Each structure stands twice: as structure tokens, then as C-alpha cells.
């Protein structure tokens, strides 16, 4: 078989280069190997790719290797071909042409899928650089910016007008999505007492670019007490304090426990020089605690009758004296070895008379009935030990005594042998028709006995005068009113229950006090022994607010809703 093989090479769009080759063989083999009749020098073609031969039906081409043969577009392992047929073998296209004279078969061979420029191909295939891998800083930057701006800025601003404001009369709503959005702007933990409503910012923050106004606080806290007494001339201090917002001292968003500022500086800003700036306040300068804190001034009774009080410096000159009008000696009662009492031998202690009040802060007031009567009876007749006079009313005492003896006289049964017969008659014996003399005897006896009893009761030393300051002017017996103070330091809060571990005598030297006028309060030096400054490391940290209150209810409300900003 004579085969004319023409290799076509296209150059550009128009030019085709032809190179012809004559092959003489019965079987024409196509492939990469050099032993093939028609060598197709491309690595993509197998060593032996196809075989072409003349058969009875015509020219047959057959696949010889793994490479798929395609005849006129259709895959086929073999097929009969005629002029005009296109056969694809890998990247090559074989076209059967009309055989010219002297040849049995003519075909063209063209590399229709060149490999192209190796470098170009390599570069096209490579993905060098992270940007080629699809990562984009710009996309991510925009994306994250938008996400955070939306969630952090736009959304909270959008929900600001919504939400439920809580006041003392407006209820607390359930937590909803608006609250969660608003909470993203929360700069710090809300204090514990406010947490139950504070999920909505508008409850306190009523305006934009404006601090929390006082009326937001006053909507629930209208009764908060004042710090300054009304009517006193206090100079700038009153104006300064009125101009101070609640939020200046009470800072929210500082933590669960941090609502009230306890730093000394908050108080000493004014109190360090208060004696100069507001002399009428009667408050001494307190530059700091403990160094510089003045000695306590006890509020004692100056005149129990009015009553009037005075503040006197402990340990000062004049010595503080509490004129309670009660005659009482602690020393006489706090006898170490004890003494005999109506209920037996007793060693008295502080707790026998000083009973803590239910809150534990102070003690219940001292009363005769509560504290004294169990030992100090008010009997007036040795023969009749079951009778006592009432306590506290001179006129009632007189009436009681007189009534008693009159009753005795009427009742009879008096054992005194010197008494008139009428009163000595046995009890139950009916009264005989009274004769004038007998009546007078009975009356005289009763009066005499009453006088005798009252003589003891109203004696200079015995009776009432044993414990009370009495006066016998113009024949009238009066007992001076007694005023026992329960709190000698009313400007401070001292909680006894917090100091219950201490012994009373560590602070109060009652054992050696023989006079009730003694003021048995400890001075500041006793407190300072344990209570150090606000940042003390080896003493109890104490600030002004450890002992003093700023808001005092007894002074009326500090701000009113209309006056507050």
C-alpha cells in the first residue's frame, strides 16, 4: 500500500506548512515510537496508538493502545474510513484525503491540540500568593467592619427609643430581645439592688449626651434623707451640695457591690475645712481618719427636766457630766465577789441590766420595772411585806399609802398591839356600830401609820432619795425628772452586735464608776486601736461611712422631684 502522509503545521490564521512523506507498507502503524510507520511525536500519544490497513470493506483504522480513537466525532475502537473522514487520535487529527496518482491512500496529519508554551502553561496552572488562593483582606475587612458596626452600633442605637421604664409605680417587664441588644452597651456590672430592672438603659438614662438626671433616681428614691439641717446658715456648702447630682457620689456600672462610694476623700473634700467654710454648722474639721479625727463629743443631759442636752468632748475640760438625775453607782453593783440579793447570792454583770435591743445595735432603755425592781423593792411596812408603793408618781405613792392604811383600818386584823382595838379586831368580824371615838382612833391610827411609812419613803436618804434627786421645798416632796440617754453619740452609728465578741469592760470602765453622772464612753483612741485608715493593712479598714451616715432621714428629703435636675 502506498500512503501519502502530509504533516500540516499552521502558522497563524492563514499559512499552512505542508510536509509530505511516503509510506509503503501493508499495515500502517501510528504512534509515538520511532518504529511506527507514521510517528506521532507527542508524549500524549501511546507508543503504538493505531493501525491502519486495507481490508475487504475498505480502509480500516483500529485502535492499538489505550488512547481512544474518535472517527468523525464518535468514539470507536475501529472503523472503516473514507476520504473526508476525520479521525482524532489524542491531540492529532487525521483526515483521509483523495489519493492522488500513484498512491492508494492519502491522509493529512495535524497536531490540533498543541501543548503550547510550557512556561505559560505552568504560570497559568500555578496559584502563587494567598490572594490567588481566594483570600481577600478587603472582603474580610469590609465584612467584619459591617458586622461589628451593625451589631455594636446601629442595632443598639435603633432600639434605644424602645423599652419599658421602671419607676416605683411602673412594673418591671419581662426580659426581651431589646434588652439583650441594649446590654451590649453595658460598660460595667450594675449594682446588685438595681439589677432586676436595669436591663433597660432608659430607666436611668433619659437623654442623649446628658448625664443621668436626679429625677431618674428620685422616681424611686424620693425619701432619701438630707445631709444638711434646714434653717442653718451654711454658706457655700448648702449651694454646693444642692448642685451635686446623685450620680456624682453614687456611681453605677462599677460592679455588684460598688454603688456607694466609701472613700474618705468624698467626705473630707468638704469636712476637712468645714469649720472655716460653714462655722454655723458647729462641725469641727476632719482632715482624715484616724490621724486628724477630733475626739468624740458625747451628747449628755445638761438638764433632765427640760430636757436639754450638751455636747462635751470626752476627756476634755470641763469633764463631761451626764446629769440624768438618777443616783446610781455602777461600782456598787459590779462587785467582783458578788452580794446577796432577794433571789440569792449574785455576781452582777453588765448583761443583767443592759439588754440588747432586737436589732442588736444598742440596748433597751433602762426602766425601774425591767432592771431595778427585782432587787430594789418598794415595800413600806415590815409587818406587811407584800405591799409596795407604785413607782414614779409621788402623788400616787401618797394616795396608795393612805388608802392602804385606811383599808387596813376598815378591814381589821392589824397585829400591832398598840393599835386601837377597832383595827385589831379579827378580819371578818363585822364592824360594830361605830362610835365617834373609835372612828377617830381608827382614822388617827391610819394617818399615823401612813405618815410613818411616808416618812421612810420620802426620807432624805432612804426611800425615793436612795436613787432619785429629790427636793423638799415648801414642804412639798418632788422627785426630779430622770432622763436616761440611750445614745450618747447620735451623729454616728455604733453597732454593738458587730462588737459582741468584745467584753464590755474593754471599752466601758463601769466597774470603777461610782457616780451616774460619769460618762463611760471610750474615746477615739479605743476605736483606733482596731480601726485603721481606709487602706490599712494590719488594722480593720475603716472609712467615714463605717460610722457615719450621709443621708439622714430625720432631716427630711434631700431632693424633691421638682427641684432635682
Amino acid at each position: 500500500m502506498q500512503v501519502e502522509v502530509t504533516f500540516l503545521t499552521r502558522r497563524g490564521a492563514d499559512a499552512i506548512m505542508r510536509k509530505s512523506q511516503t509510506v509503503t507498507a501493508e499495515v500502517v502503524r501510528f504512534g509515538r515510537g520511532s518504529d511506527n510507520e507514521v510517528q506521532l511525536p507527542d508524549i500524549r500519544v501511546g507508543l503504538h496508538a493505531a493501525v491502519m490497513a486495507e481490508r475487504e470493506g475498505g480502509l480500516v483504522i483500529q485502535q492499538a493502545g489505550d488512547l481512544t480513537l474518535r472517527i468523525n466525532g464518535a468514539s470507536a475502537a475501529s472503523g472503516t474510513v473514507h476520504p473526508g473522514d476525520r479521525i482524532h487520535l489524542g491531540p492529532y487529527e487525521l483526515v483521509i484525503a483523495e489519493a492522488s496518482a500513484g498512491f492508494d491512500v492519502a491522509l493529512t496529519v495535524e497536531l490540533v491540540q498543541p501543548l503550547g508554551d510550557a512556561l505559560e502553561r505552568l504560570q497559568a496552572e500555578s496559584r502563587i500568593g494567598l490572594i490567588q488562593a481566594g483570600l481577600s483582606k478587603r472582603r474580610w475587612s469590609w465584612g467584619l467592619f459591617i458586622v461589628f458596626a451593625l451589631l455594636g452600633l446601629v442595632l443598639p442605637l435603633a432600639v434605644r427609643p424602645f423599652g419599658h421604664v421602671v419607676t416605683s409605680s411602673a412594673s418591671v417587664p419581662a426580659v426581651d430581645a431589646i434588652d439583650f441588644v441594649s446590654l451590649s452597651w453595658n460598660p460595667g456590672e450594675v449594682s446588685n439592688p438595681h439589677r432586676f430592672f436595669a436591663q433597660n438603659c432608659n430607666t436611668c438614662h433619659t437623654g442623649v449626651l446628658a448625664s443621668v438626671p436626679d429625677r431618674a433616681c428620685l422616681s424611686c428614691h424620693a425619701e432619701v434623707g438630707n445631709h444638711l439641717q434646714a434653717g442653718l446658715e451654711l454658706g457655700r456648702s448648702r449651694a454646693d451640695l444642692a448642685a451635686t447630682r446623685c450620680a456624682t457620689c453614687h456611681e453605677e456600672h462599677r460592679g455588684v457591690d460598688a454603688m456607694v462610694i466609701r472613700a474618705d476623700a468624698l467626705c473630707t473634700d468638704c469636712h476637712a475645712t468645714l469649720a472655716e467654710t460653714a462655722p454655723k454648722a458647729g462641725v469641727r474639721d476632719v482632715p482624715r481618719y484616724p490621724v486628724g479625727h477630733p475626739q468624740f463629743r458625747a451628747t449628755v443631759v445638761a438638764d433632765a427636766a427640760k430636757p436639754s442636752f450638751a455636747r462635751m468632748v470626752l476627756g476634755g475640760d470641763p469633764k463631761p457630766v451626764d446629769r440624768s438625775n438618777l443616783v446610781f453607782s455602777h461600782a456598787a453593783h459590779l462587785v467582783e465577789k458578788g452580794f446577796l440579793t432577794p433571789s440569792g447570792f449574785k455576781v452582777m454583770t453588765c448583761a443583767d441590766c443592759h439588754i440588747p435591743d432586737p436589732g442588736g445595735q444598742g440596748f433597751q432603755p433602762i426602766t425601774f420595772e425591767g432592771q431595778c425592781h427585782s432587787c430594789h423593792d418598794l415595800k413600806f411596812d415590815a409587818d406587811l411585806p407584800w405591799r409596795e408603793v407604785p413607782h414614779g408618781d409621788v402623788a400616787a405613792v401618797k394616795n396608795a399609802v393612805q388608802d392602804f392604811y385606811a383599808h387596813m383600818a376598815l378591814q381589821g386584823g392589824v397585829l400591832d398591839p398598840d393599835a386601837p382595838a377597832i383595827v385589831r379586831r379579827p378580819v371578818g368580824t363585822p364592824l360594830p356600830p361605830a362610835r365617834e371615838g373609835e372612828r377617830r382612833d381608827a382614822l388617827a391610827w391610819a394617818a399615823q401609820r401612813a405618815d410613818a411609812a411616808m416618812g421612810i419613803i420620802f426620807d432624805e436618804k432612804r426611800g425615793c432619795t436612795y436613787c432619785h434627786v429629790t427636793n423638799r421645798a415648801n414642804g412639798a416632796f418632788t422627785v426630779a425628772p430622770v432622763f436616761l440617754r440611750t445614745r450618747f453619740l447620735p451623729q454616728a452609728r455604733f453597732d454593738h452586735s458587730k462588737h459582741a465578741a468584745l467584753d464590755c469592760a474593754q471599752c466601758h470602765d463601769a466597774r470603777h464608776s461610782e457616780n451616774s453622772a460619769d460618762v463611760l464612753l471610750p474615746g477615739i483612741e479605743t476605736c483606733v486601736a482596731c480601726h485603721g485608715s481606709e487602706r490599712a493593712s494590719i488594722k480593720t479598714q475603716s472609712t467615714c461611712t463605717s460610722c457615719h451616715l450621709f443621708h439622714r432621714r430625720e432631716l427630711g428629703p434631700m431632693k424633691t422631684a421638682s427641684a432635682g435636675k
Partner: protein
Amino acid sequence: MRANSPVEADAGARPAHEEDRHTPFLMYRRFFYFKTAVAAVIVSCILYWGYRPMGEPYGGTWVGYLLGTVGALLILWLMWFGYRKRAYLTNQGKLEAWLSAHVYFGLGLLIIATLHTGFHFGWNIHTAAYVLMCLVIVSGAFGIYCYVHYPRLMTQNRASTSMPQMLARIAVLNDELRASAMGIDDAAARLVTRSIEHTEIGGSAWQQITARYPNCTTAAALAGIDAIAARSTPEQQVAYRRLRVLLDEKAQILGRARRDISYKAMMDAWLYVHVPLSFALLAALLAHVVSVFVYW
């Protein structure tokens, strides 16, 4: 452009143009920006621990506001570096100076901003801004490490070539492989074809960074060729030996190119964290500042 200073007579004593000599950005101007940043941090610490507010330290005390303002301005200035970096025609200070300042003030910002928080943290946009800032700074610190560590590795790895040169050499090798593969077995030819047609250089971000190419066609070809050559004819074995030499060289250059890509990718990758997060920080910072003013 700077005017050149006259060349020294004894040019061996020290470099003629001191300012032209390369200084690592960390050491720029004898650690000038390091010293400045440390001074700023010390001043901030003194302010923070020296001032005793009546309550606790907090972003809203005057020291807090001061540190916060300084921090916010610092953040904006630090982000401006991204613009300055690309302003090639400008004269606003040398880029080295900007980079040195950026690095040291960025690190200092970590401390200044932490003091501004007063160590109050919570689940809110304010702490979110702080956390984003910390992530940005930490990623930046990693960037410092990359910029100090990788360039030398890259230079050593390249061994006086460049990526285009490596690619060109690989292309040439591909052509030579194609030419040398005429007489070999079909199976071997397929392996070589695959190596020529699918040379993986780069790829996904993970592939680029880790330089792991488990489906490397060249490696497969190398492995396959040996097996095939073992049972081939002596004439073919000559061809296979030639192929092997070519494939070996190609593998070596591929390894170098891929390693180069890996180092470059590491030097770029941290920026894909640093820059987007800094924009997230910008948004969060804006929210933080606006919220403080809205709820004064």
C-alpha cells in the same frame, strides 16, 4: 530625593552613606521608637497608679478618659500606616520610620488600653473592642516574628535564583521531559505526561503555607519510573535514566519553589488576620466611643 553626601576617602572604614545602610526596622534610629513607646507606657502607669479616684479605677475617671483618648488616637494612627504603606510617591517620613513606630507604639497600646479598662471586663461591646485590639496586636507581634525570621530563610532557600527563574527552569525541564519521553513505555509516558501537564505550584492557602503536595505528579512520576525502568530493555533504560535525571532536577526546583511560596505565604498570612480584625476593631471602637457619649 535626598542629595547624596560625598564619598569618604577611606571607604573601607565605615559605609559611605550611613543612612543608606539597611537597619532592621526594630533597631531603627538606635531603638528611638522603642524608647519613646516605653516612655509613654511609663507615663501611663504613673498616671494610673498615682491617681486614686474616689471609687475604683475605671474608664470614666479623668485618667481613664485621658488614656482612652490617647488609645483611640493611637489606634487611628496605627491604622493609617496601612495607607502610608501604599502611598509610594509621598514624602511623609520614611517607611522604615513609620514601621518602627507602628510596631513599638502598637505594642505599647496593649498596656495603655489595658490601663484604660481599669481591669473591668464583661460581655459587652467595650470588652469586645478590647479583645479585638488584643488580637490585632498579638497578630502583629506574630508579624514581627515573621518579618524577622522568614526573609533570611527565603534568601537561603532561593540560593540566588528568583521565582520567575525557577518557573522558567521548570518549563524548560518540562519541554526536555517531553522530548526525552518519545521511546518509553506507555505507562511511563502517562506518568511523565501528568508531571508535565499538572505541575502543582501553589494552590489553596493551606497548601501554600504548609508546602504539602500529597498529589505531586513529579513525585509520582519519579516513583513510577523506577519500577518501570527495572523491567525494561537496556535501550529504554538509557531513556529512563535521562528522564530520571530531569525529573530529579525538576523535583528539587519544585521543592525550592514551594518552600519559597510557603515562606512568602507565612509572611502574608498573618496580615489576613491583622488587617480585617483591625477594621472590626475600628467598628467596635466607634460603637464604644459613641455609646460612651450617648449614655454620658
